[in-house]
């Protein structure tokens, strides 16, 4: 999915390719405008292809940046009374394949009473993700199975799905509008029962294909939840979301996530993503 934020460290190697693709897309756009009148049917399928392309690009930009990456994250959760809580963790990620499966490790460092708590995820596109949890104080590794991916990520406004990525196959997309700067795409879930929203709109920056604003609507067509990118920075020449916020529009509570020490293509070994690393944090990759 496009609101994914943890995984948007883009491979520098892909950067040029991406630029080229953007150009192609722009060309395709203008072409389709000229081609509108003669063939409406062809136009429809063109449009569909165009949206699919944008989504694919956005997905790549947000999720599959680099072959691997590491970053320190700080979440500040602000409740409706304005009370703040802080969580800090380090994420290690390695892609199996672009737009394919991924391995992720999340190591908690703050608050200190949850220090060394670890999440491990094997993200599978074809079926459910594998998820594990290590709780040091209970000396416990547990496999987690969840009914859905729209549960809170450790009490924040980010859902597990916002962190691991929503599969584009689950939604139907339509291009609502576009201007010089961005596309606005509407997404409707294929299985309405599987999610709590009725649809969402996402604004994708034409320059870097990063989704910069996503708004979710309930069944009364009221906007209920909003993701906004607050800061983008180039890391090794890759546009990277450094700060973003998800707001519960019902009570204006929100969580802000900030990244620091973002690194791409650090050469994380596959063997790192194992149960062993959960009990014994791989210090070398965490500092």
């Amino acid at each position, binding site marked *: 999915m496009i609101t994914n934020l943890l995984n948007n460290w883009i491979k520098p190697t892909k950067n040029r390719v991406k630029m080229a693709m953007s150009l192609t897309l722009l060309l395709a756009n203008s072409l389709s405008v000229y081609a509108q009148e003669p063939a409406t049917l062809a136009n429809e399928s063109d449009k569909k292809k165009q949206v699919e392309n944008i989504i694919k690009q956005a997905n790549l930009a947000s999720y599959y940046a680099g072959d691997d990456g590491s970053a320190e994250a700080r979440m500040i959760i602000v409740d409706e009374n304005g009370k703040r809580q802080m969580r800090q963790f380090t994420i290690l990620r390695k892609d199996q394949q672009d737009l394919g499966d991924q391995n992720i490790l999340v190591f908690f460092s703050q*608050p200190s009473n949850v220090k060394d708590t670890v999440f491990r995820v094997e993200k599978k596109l074809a079926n459910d993700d594998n998820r594990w949890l290590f709780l040091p104080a209970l000396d416990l590794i547990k*496999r987690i199975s969840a009914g859905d991916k729209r*549960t809170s990520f450790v009490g924040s406004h980010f859902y597990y799905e916002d962190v691991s990525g929503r599969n584009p196959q689950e939604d139907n997309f339509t291009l609502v509008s576009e201007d010089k700067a961005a596309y606005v795409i509407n997404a409707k879930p294929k299985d309405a029962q599987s999610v709590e929203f009725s649809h969402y709109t996402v604004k994708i920056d034409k320059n870097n294909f990063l989704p910069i604003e996503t708004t979710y609507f309930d069944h009364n067509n009221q906007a209920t939840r909003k993701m906004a990118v607050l800061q983008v920075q180039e890391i090794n020449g890759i546009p990277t979301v450094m700060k973003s916020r998800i707001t519960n529009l019902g009570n204006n509570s929100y969580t802000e996530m900030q990244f620091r020490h973002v690194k791409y293509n650090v050469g994380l070994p596959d063997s790192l993503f194992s149960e062993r690393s959960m009990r014994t944090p791989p210090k070398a990759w965490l500092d």
Partner: protein
Amino acid sequence: MNYQRLLNFAIAKPKVIYSLILLVTCLSLAMLPQISIDTDPENMLSQDAPARIFHNQIKTDFLMRDMIVVGLVSKSSVFTPETLTVIEHLTNDILLLDGVIAQDLMSLSVVDNIRQLTNEQGVNQGIVFEYLMKQAPTSSQASSEIQQAVKRLPMLNNTLVSGDDKAVAIYVPIVAKDQSYIIAEKIRALASNIAAIKQENLAFHITGLPVAEDQFGYEMFVQMGVAAPLAGLAIFILLWYFFRNIVLIIAPMVVAMATVLIIMGSLIGLGFTVHIMSSMIAIFLMPIAVVDSVHILSEFADRFKAGDDAKKTIKKVMGHLYKPMLFTSITSAVGFYSLMLTPIPPVKVFGAFIGTGILLAFVLTITYIPAYITRMKPETLAKLQRAIQLMEEKGRLATVLAALGAFSVQRSKLILIAFIALFAISLAGINRIEINDNPVNWFKADHEIRLADKVLNEHFAGTYDAWLVFSNTQQQQQSALDSFQQALVSANDGATKSVISQAFEQWRTNTGADKPSFFNTELLIQLDDLRFSASNLEQPWLEQLYTISEQAVNAQQIFTDPNMLKWLVKLQTAMVNKGDVGKVNSLSDIVRTVNRELNSGDDTDFVIPNTSNGVAQTLLQFQSSHRPQDLWHFVSPDYQRTLLWLQMTSGDNQHMANIVTWLEDYIATNPPPINVKHQWAGKSYLNVVWQDAMVSGMIDSLMSSFVMVFLMMVILFRSIKYGLLAMLPLTFTITMIYGLVGWFGKAYDMPIAVLSALTLGLSIDFAIHFIQRIRELEIEQRSLGRALMAMFQEPSRAIARNAIVIAIGFTPLLLSPLMPYITVGFFLASIMILSALVTLVLLPALLTLLDRSRNTSHDINLKP
């Protein structure tokens, strides 16, 4: 002021009086549309009452909402696909209503389940976080799986589904309690649209204090529109019965209407809300306002002979009645004004406006009535006079009163003994009085709110909430502060250091009573932010400061301490075993449930983890659900305060008061492992607080008005003896009324408490009129015996007539569907009759006895 001049003016310029009254009444009438109704019992406490401030603070801090409880009750189990489908359907509909806080709504279809994941062989594969019932099941197998799951979730069991599985609840949090009636109505409509509710034979109920209160407000509004005009009508009919002259009785009706409208108009115009108490002002003032007019009309009819000059007669009558009317009005007003001594704002407003209303009615009576009478045609006056004479001489009232007079004089000793005995019995009754109130009982027993309340509390652990809050009292950690300061002092100077020093100084010089701990999340975030901008030289000591602060913050989180949580578990168990409390929901339930599922899933693991970190990590898991925010209803994000949600099956203040006392004892004998402060909040608790305030406040108000009235009596009669005598009827009446309340087991609630002041204010009237007249008559007749005989003619009839007018005037209250109105109507009617009787029986008997001891030569024969 010289009343004679005012009277002359009123008689000379009636039109000025008329237009003045009309003008003021119209002005007041214009205020009425601005009415705002207030039914929140919370307003029984003033805005700045500490208990109320704390309650609202807790509501904000722990995001506790006002809840409407929707219940569906089945004859058999609710765990069938059909019933669960109804729940899902109804929940989805309710979630879309305006004013409902969707994220906090509790229903089977929106809450989470945490359970073990097992493979076909039953081998543990991990844990599952999921919606308990995302969609209603289609098979009975799947339904019973949900049933099993609920049984394993202590936070839901007996809260969302009853222990007997026959009832299921939806807790609907709402944004504002004054919307609860309208939301409840919408939910009722939604439910009536679901055909399956009927098909499945489900009984649908709505309860919860906000609904009860808001519905009460709605019905109160209706009552005001019905009861006050009905009281007016009753009085009108009664006056017609007494005087048989429509033209004449229009005058007291005008006085009553003008009084009520001006008082209600000014109440609303001055920006006061109409509370349950003030809604009764109209009904109270109506009968009280006509009383003085009845005296004037009675006496006027008595004295006026055909061909007389009405002006002269009325001047004589007014000269005669002015003083007792002034005094009765002032004493009644004092009785009501004394309510302003109570610490309960609605009662204060009620007392102030009725007191003023009585004085206003007096002013209207002494100006308008004489003006009106002198403008009446001679024929009408003659007719009136004939009718009165006819009624007075042959009336049953006259015969009964004459006999009563003879009886009280002849059997004076017997009467005295009987009164002393009654007084003693009443005192015994007062000792039996149970102080209790319950806003749900403000509805009649067959009201749908009462029925829902009864049914749902039979099935569930309780729909009444009280919150027990424990807070950390030992925040300041000296050693951590010292290390922090030390590290800061040795740091290199620069912008970073000065920012921190400044924050530290600011905190250090704060001398507020509720000084928060220096170490908190804000500080940690600030230090963490500074690490970004800080130079390499600053990094080491910044790191050190962060570590010191983080450890201090951690140490303050006493509600992750296993010993503390274990102590809470014990307290909860003891509380439920004690009774009155159906269930306690707390942080310890969350921790134990998640811990059980993280481990084996067996009951043996339904325990608190052994370390603080274990607790924190368990809670981190709980927050990885669809409803992480649920945690903050039970603990503050800094883990320094925890809230226990008590579900009680009754809204009786007494039960709540019992628990409060019990807790003090429990904590004294089982001190917590860490020093904590405990405080109560929640609607049930607030009701106890204002009830206590009311009971003590009422005693103060009664005592002070008693003294005031006594002093006024001594001044009025210029005699201590007569002052004391005047106080006797009301003393007896109040004692007997409260004795009755005690003996009948009627709870001493808000309306009953307010009655004491009313009794005092109203029953003194009769004594004043009686003593004033008997003293005049005694001088006139030069014998107490003859004076008493005369007394039991016209003067006693005026007293009796007045008692009847007020008593009957209050009877429309008996038709109300709301209990406080019925109680007030019933007791006021009884008080009026009783105090008139006591005056007419006790005073002659005592006067006779006192007279005999002084002068035995009197021959008393009252028989005509």
